[in-house]
C-alpha cells in the first residue's frame, strides 16, 4: 500500500499563496468595490429628448415650450426612478432638421422618450422616427389632424387638440357673425387643415368662401393679401398662420385700417403671438388651449404658473403649459412604468390621467390624442396689463360627453393604430 504523497498529481483545486491573495483581493473588491461599480451604473442619468426650435419662424413659441418642459423635470429635482435625469434639447430648423435631431437623440444620446415638434410638419417628421425607432414621443404643440389620424402610430402621443376640434368650437362663433368667409392660411399641414375644416363647415351651413389664399411661411409683408381681402368684402376672415407670421399679419391688418372693420378669427393662438402685436393692433376671436388666469386651473397648474413666474419673471404662456404638460405626461409615465423600456412607457402613457376641473384628461388608447376643453377668447377692448390680452368668453365643450363628441369617436377616427 502506498501512502499518498503530497507531491502527487493534484486531483482537486489547489490554492497557493498567490491564489489566496488573488481570492482575498477579489473578495474585498466584491464587498467594497462592486457596490460602487453598481452605483455608477445606477447613477447613469436617464436622458429625455426634447426637440424645440432654436432657430426659424416658430422659435418664439419654442422658447416657452422648452422652458415648460425643463420646469417639469426641475419640479422632480431632476430625478426619475431614483436616478438623475437630464433633458437633451436639440434644434428643429425645418422638417428634415427635426428628423435628423430625432435620429441623433435616439442613436447617439440613447434617450428613453422625446417631446417636441413645434410645427405640424416637424412633428410628423419626428413621429416617423419615433415609429421606426420604437421610442415614445409626445407632440405637445402640433395641431395637424394627421398626427393622430392617418399618420398615427403606437409610439406617438399628441397633446394639442387637432385642427378639426378647434374648428368645431370656433366655427359656430364665426358663422354667427356672417356667412361670407375669406381664408388666409399657411401653405403647410396646419394651414391646409384649417382651410379644409372651415370650408367644410361654412359650405355645410349655407355660407360661402369668398376668397382663399395660401401664404408661405415667413412672409414679411401681408399688405398685398390684405388688399385682396378688403376688395372681397367678407363678413369674417379666418386665419391659419402661426406664431410670428400671425403677429406680422395683425400689425399690418391694423396698419391698413382693417382692425374692427372685418372680424378676424383663428384657432390655437398663443399668448406670445399677441404680446408681440401690441395693444394698439391686437384684435380677433380665438381658441386657446390654456390661460394662466383661468380660475379653473388645477392646483398643480397653479403651482407651475407660480414657479414659472418666479423663475422667468413673466406669466406662464399657454406654450409654457403645453411644454410642461407634455413633458410631465412622459415623466409621470416613466415613473408609472417603473422602467425605461419603450413598450412599458407607451402602456403607461395610454393609462396616464390628469385631473382638470370636473374631468380626467389623458391620451385615448385608439389614437393617442389627448382630450380636453378649449377656451374661446376675444381681446380686451382696453389693454392695461401688457401680459393680459385675452378676454375669455367660454370654456368648451361644456360636458365630458360633449368633449368626447367634439374629438370624435373611434369609428370616426382615421387612425389605424399599429401594435408595439
Amino acid at each position, binding site marked *: 500500500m502506498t501512502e499518498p504523497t503530497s507531491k502527487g498529481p493534484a486531483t482537486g483545486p489547489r490554492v497557493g499563496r498567490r491564489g489566496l491573495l488573488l481570492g482575498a483581493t477579489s473578495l474585498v473588491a466584491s464587498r467594497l468595490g462592486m457596490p460602487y461599480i453598481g452605483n455608477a451604473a445606477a447613477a447613469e442619468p436617464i436622458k429625455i429628448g426634447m426637440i424645440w426650435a432654436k*432657430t*426659424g*419662424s416658430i*422659435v*418664439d413659441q*419654442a*422658447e*416657452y415650450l422648452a422652458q415648460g418642459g425643463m420646469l417639469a423635470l426641475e419640479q422632480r429635482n431632476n430625478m426619475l426612478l431614483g436616478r438623475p435625469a437630464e433633458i437633451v434639447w436639440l434644434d428643429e430648423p425645418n422638417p428634415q432638421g427635426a428628423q435628423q435631431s430625432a435620429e441623433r437623440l435616439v442613436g447617439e444620446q440613447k434617450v428613453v422618450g422625446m417631446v417636441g415638434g413645434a410645427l405640424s410638419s416637424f412633428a410628423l417628421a419626428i413621429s416617423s422616427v419615433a415609429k421606426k425607432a420604437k421610442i415614445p414621443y409626445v407632440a405637445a404643440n402640433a395641431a395637424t389632424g394627421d398626427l393622430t389620424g392617418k399618420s398615427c402610430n403606437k409610439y406617438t402621443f399628441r397633446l394639442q387638440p387637432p385642427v378639426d376640434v378647434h374648428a368645431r368650437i370656433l366655427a359656430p362663433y364665426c358663422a354667427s357673425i356672417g356667412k361670407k368667409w375669406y381664408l388666409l392660411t399657411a*401653405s403647410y399641414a396646419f394651414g391646409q387643415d384649417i382651410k379644409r375644416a372651415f370650408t367644410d363647415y361654412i359650405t355645410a351651413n349655407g355660407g360661402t368662401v369668398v376668397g382663399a*389664399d*395660401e*401664404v*408661405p*411661411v*415667413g*412672409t*414679411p*409683408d401681408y*399688405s*398685398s*393679401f390684405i*388688399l*385682396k381681402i*378688403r*376688395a372681397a368684402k367678407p363678413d369674417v376672415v379666418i386665419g391659419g398662420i402661426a406664431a*410670428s*407670421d400671425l*403677429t*406680422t399679419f395683425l*400689425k*399690418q391688418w391694423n*396698419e*391698413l*385700417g382693417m382692425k374692427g372693420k372685418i372680424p378676424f378669427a383663428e384657432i390655437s393662438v398663443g399668448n*406670445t*403671438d399677441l*404680446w*408681440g*402685436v*401690441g*395693444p*394698439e*393692433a391686437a384684435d380677433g376671436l380665438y381658441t386657446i388651449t390654456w390661460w394662466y388666469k383661468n380660475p379653473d386651473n388645477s392646483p398643480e397648474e397653479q403651482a407651475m404658473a407660480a414657479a414659472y413666474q418666479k423663475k422667468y419673471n*413673466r406669466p406662464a*404662456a399657454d406654450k409654457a403649459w403645453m411644454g410642461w404638460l407634455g413633458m410631465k405626461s412622459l415623466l409621470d409615465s416613466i415613473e408609472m412604468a417603473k422602467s425605461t423600456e419603450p413598450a412599458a412607457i407607451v402602456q403607461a402613457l395610454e393609462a396616464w390621467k390628469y385631473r382638470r376641473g370636473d374631468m380626467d384628461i389623458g391620451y385615448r388608447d385608439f389614437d393617442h390624442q389627448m382630450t380636453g376643453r378649449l377656451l374661446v377668447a376675444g381681446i380686451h377692448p382696453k389693454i392695461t396689463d401688457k401680459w393680459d390680452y385675452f378676454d375669455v368668453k367660454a370654456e368648451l365643450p361644456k360636458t365630458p360627453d360633449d368633449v368626447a363628441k367634439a374629438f370624435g369617436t373611434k369609428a370616426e377616427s382615421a387612425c389605424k393604430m399599429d401594435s408595439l
Partner: protein
Amino acid sequence: MLDMILSQAVNGLVLGFLYVLIAIGLSIIFGMLGIVNFAHGAFFAVGAYLAYALGKEFGWWAALAAPLLTGAIGVVVEMVLIRHLYGKEPLLGLILTFALALLAEAVLRLIFGGAPVPFAAPKFLAGFVEYGPILITKYRLFVLVTTALVLVLFWAFLAYTPYGRIIRAGSRDPEMVGLLGINLPIVFTGVFGIGCLLAGLGGMLAAPLWTITPSMAAGAIMPAFVIVTIGGLGSFLGAIVAGLLVGITTAMTIQFQPEWSGAAMYVLMAAILLIRPRGLFGERWERFE
C-alpha cells in the same frame, strides 16, 4: 382689376424700397471691402430692437437715433473683427460674418427674450390715404419718402463729395487710393458703418410693420442677397432697380398666384441670371476676377 393691380404695384414699391435700403448697405460693403456680409441682416434686427428700446424709454422720436447707434455698432465691429479679413481668403469672411449673425441673434435673445416685442408707428402716421383706386397708409408713404430721400442723399454723397469719390475709387483700386496718401482703414471703417446704418434704418422703418424677434434677420437677409445678385454685386443703381423689381413681382404674384409669392423673387433671380450672369448692372471688376 386694373385698380387692384395699381394698388398692388404701389404696395410692392414700398416693400421694394425697404428691401433696397437693406440691400444697398450689403452691396457697398461688398463693393468696397470685398466682404460678403452674412451679418447684415443682424444689423437690420439690431436697428429694429434699438428703435423698440429707445421708443419704449424715451418716446417715438428717440427711436430715430436707432440707425445712428446701429452704424456706431457697425464701426466697432469693423475695427474689432472685420478689418482682419481684408485681403484674406473670402471663405474666412463668410464664416466670420455668419458666426457674427448667430451671435447677434443670441445676444438679442438674451437681452430681450425670444418672444416678439411690440412697436407701433407714431399716432400722427396712423390712418391711410386713397388716391383713386390706390390705397396706401400714411406710415408706408413715410417709409417710401424717407427711403427715397436717403437714397438720393447717399447717391449725392457718393457722386459729389470728395469722400464719395474716395469710396468709389477705393472700391475699384484700394491700393492706388492708399498710395495717394489716403488713410484707407478709416475709409473702410466708415463704409462698413454707413452700410450698417442703412440696415439699421431699414430695421427701424420695418419695426412697426414686421414682427420684432431675434430671428427677424432671416426675413431681411435673403431678399437683400437676391436683390444684390439681381442688381449686380456692388452696384448702387442695380440694387435700387432690383429692389423695386422684387417688391413689385412679389406683390403681383400675391394678386394672381399667392402660393408662389415666396418663390417669386428666386424665380426672377434665376431668370435674370440666365440672361445676364453678372446681374442687371453688374460690371467686370478686376479685383474680384
